[in-house]
């Protein structure tokens, strides 16, 4: 495979035949690449592809029980990285090579002020003469990563900062000693969309300014397209393809790359209006080559008749919900949190509505109240003729028959100690249900077939399935009772892209087939845009805007909505020829 790249002089980083194995199981094998100074390389792959391990290996922090082979050389550092002792590597870490991690909250010491944490990296490498100088420099660095009021922020603890600010602190820390190489491991995955774009911009600006080499690890192709010049595609520990962004994303040579690309591009649909999956990727045309501008994703989709909003199937009025958090100390009082505040809307039968918002916006709380799983503190919500507010479990019985729910975490939503058959049959066991054991078995098998799982799956346990398969089981359970309303809470956000498309297609198919009213919560605007007719945008427990999907996307009325739309990276847009 040709590198397709000319290096001027010595490369910044040269990795040859990197192999990582746990015992006899290879996790990464035969990975070779090199990076020029200041180059920005994206390392993409799905979970389990070995991309994070690669970064950890370069830093010399692989867990002891993993075996490491191959070699890596960093410019200006004589010893080979993988065989250099910990002492030598310590000199490099934080100084020549530094890293930004995925989850900034857990990556920062909760008991130490952030200024001190930034200063520490300079003190360790003695790049500043005194503690005071380190503190000053830390404040400067916090300013350079655009944290408002950096002096005050330096004296704050991590929990007092927002997620985006924390990640900025991590970046400041990583760049404090002007490293040659920055490893960024999914640095924005844990962040909200609006914050994600800002942080990406920051990283991009900083490395360009400093001429730092960037190895950017992500599962998100849109992000790579936004950040990097070159990309390495990893699949199951092997490099399947590498090359310039333009080449790879327009003419993927490897079927896997093509499939990944197709599945990631939520704006592209096949003839049935369904997303491309691994199986249908052959028919996928990368956006850059598409003749029509990718602004009409709905064009291919079958026409859906949006019913006029007559009498609402779901009507919420002035909903509010306050929580008491768990007591932390034996004699302390319990903190109070306001999750919902004056929320009202109406949804007609047959509508597909998406609720969009960032973490903490109250969208999940709202959904749980509508599903009768949580009680509102104020207001009322009538769902399928049942008043949820103040209802007893018995009052909710009709609602339970009408409404079912699919959750985000495909592992957590299935009881690990129950067989799949029992899980799917659970809604059939309610009092008053007339189905006998044989009837239930038949229903389970019918549902398994419907969601595309083998009949043998019935006797297995959840942990024997992949994430996508588990989500199918969840869907099967939700629909076994033939509800009229399906509520989905981030149903694909925990899934790999290639699986995500399949599950979204499945939901779309079933919604059509059962003529369901769909209410879906997501932080991912593209997912909502693909599935829903109408969008409710939430922020801090309130509804900021609601309206027709396309209208909201194209002409957002509220500035927050506008920011949200502008921040979300879509592959098609990232790859579209720059205007």
């Amino acid at each position: 495979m040709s590198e397709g790249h000319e290096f001027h002089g010595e490369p910044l980083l040269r990795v040859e035949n990197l192999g990582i194995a746990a015992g006899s199981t290879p996790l990464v094998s035969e990975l070779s690449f090199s990076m020029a100074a200041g180059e920005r390389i994206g390392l993409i792959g799905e979970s389990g592809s070995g991309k994070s391990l690669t970064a950890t290996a370069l830093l010399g922090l692989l867990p002891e029980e993993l075996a490491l082979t191959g070699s890596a050389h960093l410019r200006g550092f004589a010893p080979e990285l993988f065989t250099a002792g910990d002492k030598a590597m310590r000199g490099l870490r934080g100084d020549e090579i530094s890293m930004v991690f995925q989850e900034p909250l857990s990556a920062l010491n909760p008991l130490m002020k952030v200024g001190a944490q930034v200063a520490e990296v300079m003190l360790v490498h003695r790049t500043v003469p005194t503690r005071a100088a380190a503190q000053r420099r830390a404040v400067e660095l916090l300013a350079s990563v655009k944290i408002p009021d950096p002096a005050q922020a330096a004296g704050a603890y991590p929990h007092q900062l927002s997620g985006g600010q924390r990640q900025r602190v991590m970046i400041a820390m990583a760049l404090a000693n002007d490293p040659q190489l920055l490893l960024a491991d999914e640095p924005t995955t844990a962040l909200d969309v609006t914050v994600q774009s800002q942080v990406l911009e920051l990283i991009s600006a900083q490395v360009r300014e400093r001429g730092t080499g960037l190895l950017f690890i992500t599962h998100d192709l849109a992000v790579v397209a936004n950040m990097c010049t070159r990309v390495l595609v990893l699949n199951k520990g092997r490099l399947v393809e590498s090359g310039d962004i333009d080449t790879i994303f327009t003419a993927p040579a490897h079927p896997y790359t093509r499939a990944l690309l197709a599945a990631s591009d939520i704006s592209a649909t096949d003839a049935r209006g369904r997303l491309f999956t691994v199986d249908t990727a052959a028919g996928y045309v990368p956006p850059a080559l598409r003749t029509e501008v990718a602004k009409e994703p709905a064009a291919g989709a079958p026409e859906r008749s949006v019913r006029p909003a007559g009498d609402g199937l779901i009507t919420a009025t002035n909903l509010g919900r306050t929580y008491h958090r768990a007591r932390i100390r034996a004699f302390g009082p319990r903190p109070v949190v306001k999750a919902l505040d004056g929320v009202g809307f109406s949804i007609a039968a047959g509508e597909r509505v998406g609720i969009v918002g960032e973490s903490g916006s109250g969208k999940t709380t709202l959904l749980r109240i509508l599903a009768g799983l949580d009680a509102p503190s104020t207001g009322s919500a009538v769902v399928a003729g049942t008043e949820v507010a103040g209802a007893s479990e018995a009052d909710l019985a009709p609602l339970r028959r009408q409404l079912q729910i699919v959750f985000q975490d495909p592992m957590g939503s299935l009881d690990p100690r129950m067989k799949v058959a029992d899980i799917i049959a659970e809604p059939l066991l309610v009092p008053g249900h007339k189905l006998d054991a044989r009837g239930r078995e038949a229903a389970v098998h019918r549902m398994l077939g419907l969601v595309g799982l083998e009949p043998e799956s019935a006797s297995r346990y959840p942990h024997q399935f992949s994430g996508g398969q588990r989500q199918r089981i969840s869907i099967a359970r939700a629909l076994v009772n033939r509800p009229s309303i399906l509520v989905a809470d981030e149903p694909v956000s925990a899934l790999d892209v290639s699986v995500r498309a399949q599950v979204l297609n499945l939901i779309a198919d079933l919604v059509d087939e059962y003529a369901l009213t769909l209410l879906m919560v997501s932080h991912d605007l593209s997912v909502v845009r693909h599935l829903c007719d109408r969008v409710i945008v939430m922020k801090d427990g309130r509804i900021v805007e609601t309206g027709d999907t396309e209208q909201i996307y194209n002409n957002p009325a509220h500035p927050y909505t506008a920011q949200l739309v502008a921040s979300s990276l879509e592959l098609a847009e990232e790859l579209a020829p720059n205007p």
Partner: protein
Amino acid sequence: MRNARRTPALLAGAAIVALIAAAALLSFVFTPFDPLQVNAPARLQGPSLQHWLGTDNLGRDLLSRILVGARITLLVGVVSVGIAVLIGTPVGIWAGMKRGAVEELTMRGADILLAFPALLLAIMFAAIYGASTVSAMAAIGLASVPGFARVARAGTLQVMNAEYVLAARAAAQRPVRIAARHVLPNITGMLLIQCSVTFALAVLAEAALSFLGLGTPPPVPSWGRMLQESQQYWGTFPAMAIWPGLAIALAVMGFNLLGDGLRDWLDPKLGRGKA
């Protein structure tokens, strides 16, 4: 997959516990001598072919008494743990599922009960009902209730927040059914660990009570009692103290190891491996 070989503590603990259980069961059908038979001429004898572990100050066979003592140890452990499980678990699950004032009140109550450790309760009970195995068991059991209530509540909260319980509720499952089908099976592991640890504590508490003369009354050969009786012979005939001392230490260690082993075994973090 879970592999018992990865948790040697579990195997060791289970082996020791099985050994004690075997000794206790054996004592029902066979002991070398009558453990209560006083034999004055044969007092304070060292180990011999006849008396494998020797005899005590009244000439009773130490091996027989150790075997029967295992029975008392298990009895105390099983009953006190049983009391704690039967009261603590439902209360904890109830508090975790009901939340609100119920949770606040029961957990407050548990906190206050926690301020009465087993030994203190046992001393009070001994004062009230007289020293007996029953009052010792009741005190140890009652004192262990808050531990179980807390574990059960914490586990229940965790399970109740799991989406599969929300799914079950969305499927109109009644609370009792959710408790039985989802909560209980999923907190059983934690409860087992707690049982094991409480068992070890019960053995120690019974020994301490017997030492204070507030535990098992004579002539029943509880290990703690035997240790207490041996006190006068520390200088002259240490064997009388060594055997019950070893038995207690072994039992406590066995149950602690079992608890540790269970914890490792059930811990998803370790089970998943390092990949």
